[in-house]
């Protein structure tokens, strides 16, 4: 536990409420856009863009990543590199497709 002053915590609590409202608004936007039945490329781009903003808000404020120590950032950067590899490497099959 860090020695954050109660006044500072109260300020953070106000921030949590703002983030909560933003998350609710973004949820409504995501669902509303899905009813437009866009083509899959556009729909995926919008859905993942909004989800990324929501995830960033949760990670930055609720998980306090906005003011964390270097070792936590280092751990997460390494995780992000491996996650990116996990998501992109399987796509390499597109370079050598099976001829039909």
């Amino acid at each position, binding site marked *: 536990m860090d020695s954050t002053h109660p006044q500072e915590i109260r300020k953070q609590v106000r921030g949590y409420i703002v983030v909560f409202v933003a998350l609710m608004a973004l*949820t409504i936007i995501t669902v509303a856009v899905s009813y437009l039945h866009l083509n899959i490329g556009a729909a995926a781009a919008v859905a993942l863009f909004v989800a990324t903003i929501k995830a960033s808000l*949760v990670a930055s404020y*609720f998980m306090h990543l906005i003011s964390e120590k270097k070792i936590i950032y280092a751990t997460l950067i390494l995780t992000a590199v491996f996650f990116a590899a*996990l998501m992109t490497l*399987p796509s390499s099959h597109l370079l050598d497709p099976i001829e039909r």
Partner: protein
Amino acid sequence: MEIPYTVTARPDTGVFNAKLGIWLFLASEVMLFGALFSSYVLLRVGAETWPHGYDLLNVPLATLNTVILISSSVTMVMSWASLMMRNLAKYKRYMGATILLALAFLCVKFFEYGAKFEHHLYPSTNTFYAIYFTLTGLHGLHVVGGIVVNTYFWGPGSKMWRAEPERFTNRVEVAGLYWHFVDLVWIFLFPVLYLL
């Protein structure tokens, strides 16, 4: 033997041990869910046809669950903030609300799964349902794990507050990091499975 650095930060890392521990655990969780997401992308891109989630799944129920889980993330962080403001009674209220919201999430999921089973839709039905049940099932297990830990900290575990308030606050912070991660996973699962 005393467990080191449960309250104060370890000089070389700058954080208390449990915080680094939970972040390393969450990194492994990212890879677990990442592998499943990657499989989903590969299967979907490779399929001749793929159904839209909104045609097969219940979007209003999933939206309700999104609202429930986001709300529980807020009550979780408020429970930690209450401890930081030295208010145990308030902590109990917020932690209690977090547990109830998590149970509500599982209730909604129960009805959602029940409706699928009633229509004889199982993981074996097709690839879409296999992915849907695997991802939401694994996420549901994480919710159950969170309920168990949070209930312990709400009940018997909170006795630590009297003797070691800082250590207890750190425990709740670590439990909170896990809970927010469960919320983060759902933030991606919801659009990917239900809205695309």
